[in-house]
């Protein structure tokens, strides 16, 4: 359920056709009441349903933050293990479409701060397709962040492919010179940077985090131990972001393996501007990633 998921087909067309296939009891258009319909998802989940709630975009999730944080993430613990909330919340995240300051947030790092929920950020068509079933099977709340610029990506995931592993990061490109750590909408830019680096003889490894909470330390730290250098690319703001968390974990767990300081490529610390050139300048780009890698491999 969610705003315009039924007759309209979802603001980004994600649920197009579902109303016809599954009917109005299972595919519900809600009023513009983020708190009420997310909370209703929580209540229905408590009662044993397996609801999927769509929040149109991440900015509007702030109107439901009370329900997500104070209820969904908290009820199991504060009830002494009695109240499980098997709820899936999906929402669009990210910038890059000239939607200006109120529609371009990347708040998945914020959500990853919260114990009691799982935070997913699919970057590939296969993950977008195959993360949903295990998310629904999870006994706890799962929040899925879908980057708006990835909706037009195409691919042919196996229709009955195995459910995705929700606990592990994935090495999308193996390399030996530097670990490029990223997720979601930035993966494409990072892979492009890695190709350019290869042409210059720098063999970069690319780690796609996939799950922002809980973080897969083993894959990240294992990669850094092999390459001795790390660059984190994240469309969220730098201060207090998920990139800061990853850099801290590398410092805690692999400090003596590092040959250079950890580099971060993040969004500029401003509200995301509208004008095309300004927006480009505010977000991580391939050139910035390349520059960071060059500093790291020095």
């Amino acid at each position, binding site marked *: 359920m969610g705003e315009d998921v039924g007759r309209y087909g979802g603001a980004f067309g994600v649920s197009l056709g579902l109303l016809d296939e599954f009917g109005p009891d299972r595919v519900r258009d809600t009023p513009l*009441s983020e708190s*009420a319909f997310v*909370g*209703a998802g929580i209540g229905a989940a408590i*009662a044993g*349903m397996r609801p999927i709630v769509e929040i149109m975009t991440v900015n509007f999730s702030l109107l439901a933050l009370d329900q997500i944080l104070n209820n969904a993430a908290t009820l199991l613990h*504060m*009830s*002494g293990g009695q109240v499980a909330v098997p709820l899936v919340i999906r929402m669009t995240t990210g910038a890059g479409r000239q939607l200006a300051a109120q529609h371009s947030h990347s708040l998945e790092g914020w959500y990853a701060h919260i114990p009691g929920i799982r935070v997913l950020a699919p970057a590939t068509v296969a993950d977008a397709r195959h993360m949903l079933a295990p998310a629904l099977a999870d006994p706890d709340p799962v929040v899925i962040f879908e980057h708006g610029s990835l909706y037009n990506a195409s691919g042919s995931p196996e229709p009955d492919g195995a459910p995705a592993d929700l606990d592990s990061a994935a090495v999308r490109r193996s390399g030996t010179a530097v670990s490029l750590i990223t997720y979601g909408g930035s993966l494409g830019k990072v892979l492009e940077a890695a190709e350019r680096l290869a042409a210059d003889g720098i063999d970069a490894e690319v780690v796609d985090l996939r799950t922002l909470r809980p973080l897969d330390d083993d894959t990240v730290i294992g990669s850094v131990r092999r390459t001795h250098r790390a660059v984190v690319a994240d469309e969220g703001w730098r201060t207090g972001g998920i990139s800061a968390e990853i850099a801290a974990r590398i410092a805690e767990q692999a400090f003596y393996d590092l040959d250079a300081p950890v580099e971060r490529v993040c969004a500029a610390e401003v509200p995301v501007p509208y004008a095309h050139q300004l927006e480009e300048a505010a977000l991580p780009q391939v050139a910035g990633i390349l520059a960071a890698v060059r500093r790291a491999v020095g």
Partner: protein
Amino acid sequence: MTARKRAHARRSADRAGGRAAHRQELLRDMVRIRRFEELCVELYSAGEIRGFVHLCIGEEAVSVGVLRALTQDDAVVTTYREHGHALARGIPAETVLAEMLGRITGCSRGRGGSMHLFDTGRRFYGGHGIVAGGLPVAAGLALADNLRDDGHLACCLFGDGAFAEGEFHETANLAALWELPLLLVCENNLYAMGTPLAREHAQIDLAARAASYGMVAWAVDGMDVLAVERATRRAAEIVREGHGPCFLELRTYRFRAHSMYDPDLYRDKAEVERWRHRDPITTLARRMHARPCARRWPPTTGSSSWARTSDATAAPSG
């Protein structure tokens, strides 16, 4: 006397007997809640109970009248002022007390405390500390009942302060729109912490505002347990007819401060005294032409047979 007349006399005597027994039970339940909370005050003063503790002393008619009118299959969602609701739901006083003492034997295994009492076996889903935060969850429980068509309802209790929150209005609209089996019970004790009703609401007729969402809504004397029980039964019937939610405004008053932290400086002592004359326990007792079971009134903990036999005072284990 003819046989018919004798049978009629016997039936009405039975009815009167049944009614007296029922009222005796209501009285017992209200006294039990009050005794329990008086014990909480003692334990709080002794430093055994910590944190935020909100007492419902004065509001027992709401707890007992509402909870008695629901079935065991109905779901209950409530606020941080929920000791009375929990006890009236049948959660053993030992486990409620153990919870407040932070013990593993508590009804939320010591993770919740006074504000977060849970017992899913009794369909008691908390114990919510965010004003109005439980309302959307209750709508979701009602949605599940609706989809299963199981004839159960979800009952959400909340304060007059919650009525000012967006979450209340979002939920009222959603529940009416989707015709959910949701019973909304507003415990209007005239204050949201230190803010009186009229300084919080432009229109203080809360039932009238609830009715504007297209649901049946009315106000009831919340100091009269019989009226509360009757109204809740009626409201539950309406909800079970399947045309959507129903709203009750129960007009009541808390005799104690908002919480154990509150010095209670914002209201007139005379106002509190006036309301004490409408104490739900003495009101019912007077109506039964009997004195309440304590010898002294107001009763003090530990001095009467009620306190001794009540499981509230049983030593919590664990």
